[in-house]
């Protein structure tokens, strides 16, 4: 049928068409303000971050430590049995060098998001955060890193209480898969 149809619908506009007033349009902006209840798991995670601790939780059945903490294990559906304070070190699971911001503005120095497997959590369990104090060319999967915290009096109970993770000297014994 694509072979038979000559003209498919769909009128393509350029940005210039809007500027030139060639077509009619309007704008709107949602005023969407939320206060999401943090609950037991994430509330405790945020409270720990304020104290400079990354919190996980432990599932007795699956013998796993997960991060961020939750009150149930999604794999066995049993209640998690305890919160576990984790180290603020870990290894880079993967990363990117990003030259555009979230709203697609071009930047010179890349943002370096990474998934960091947190020490004390089960293998391949980590969080997303940023890398800093590092030459982008030097970053490798498997590299060891440590959280750089905001000063205690500036911490608010937020994932941004960690400024970023920076490389640490200590040699990794982990393989990237671990």
């Amino acid at each position, binding site marked *: 049928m694509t072979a038979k149809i000559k003209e498919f619908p769909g009128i393509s506009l350029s940005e210039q068409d809007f500027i030139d007033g060639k*077509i009619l349009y309007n704008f709107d902006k949602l005023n969407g303000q939320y206060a999401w209840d*943090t609950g037991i798991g994430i*509330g*405790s995670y945020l409270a*720990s971050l304020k104290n400079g601790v990354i919190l996980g939780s432990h599932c007795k059945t699956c013998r796993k430590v997960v991060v961020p903490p939750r009150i149930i294990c999604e794999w066995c559906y049993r209640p998690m049995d305890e919160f576990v304070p984790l180290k603020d070190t870990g290894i880079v699971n993967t990363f990117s060098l990003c030259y555009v911001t979230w709203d697609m503005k071009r930047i010179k120095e890349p943002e370096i998001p990474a998934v960091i497997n947190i020490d004390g959590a089960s293998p391949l369990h980590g969080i997303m955060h940023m890398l800093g104090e590092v030459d982008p060319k030097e970053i490798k999967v498997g590299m060891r890193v440590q959280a750089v915290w905001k000063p205690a009096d500036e911490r608010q109970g937020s994932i941004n209480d960690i400024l970023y993770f920076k490389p640490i000297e200590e040699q990794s014994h982990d393989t990237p898969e671990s």
Partner: protein
Amino acid sequence: MTLLNRDPNAPEAWLGELPVTNRYTFGLAGEKFFRTLKDEGRILGTHCSHCDQTYVPATVFCERCLAKLDEWVDVGTSGEIDTFTLLYVNLDGSFREKPEIIAFVRFADGGLVHRLGGVEIDHVEIGMVVQAVFKPASERIGSILDIDYFKPV
């Protein structure tokens, strides 16, 4: 339900927003409907001969049979109040002393939702004929607000 206790210092809620900003094109029907409203002060509908429906505001498709509509009709600028309400709340949920009078003004098988003006609240009733009061041509931009309000004929 849970074996874990919430940290007593846990923040109750995390505050944030859903950043949604949009630009809407008026589309195939809207382009002609609002150009005509703006430039000529006329209200247009489209007719579906299959379903014998005249849609106001105009649409390029019949919602009943999905036929393409290209029979445009001028439906005048006055219509009957099909229903109305006295709205005592603002967009943000706050209450207002004096209500806004909002009506659905029937044109053919459709109509327009708009404000009523030039009328006492007690005098508004279903079935009343009202007419579009247009903004001056120079102030019209191609918008439903090119009609200032509807007033009794």
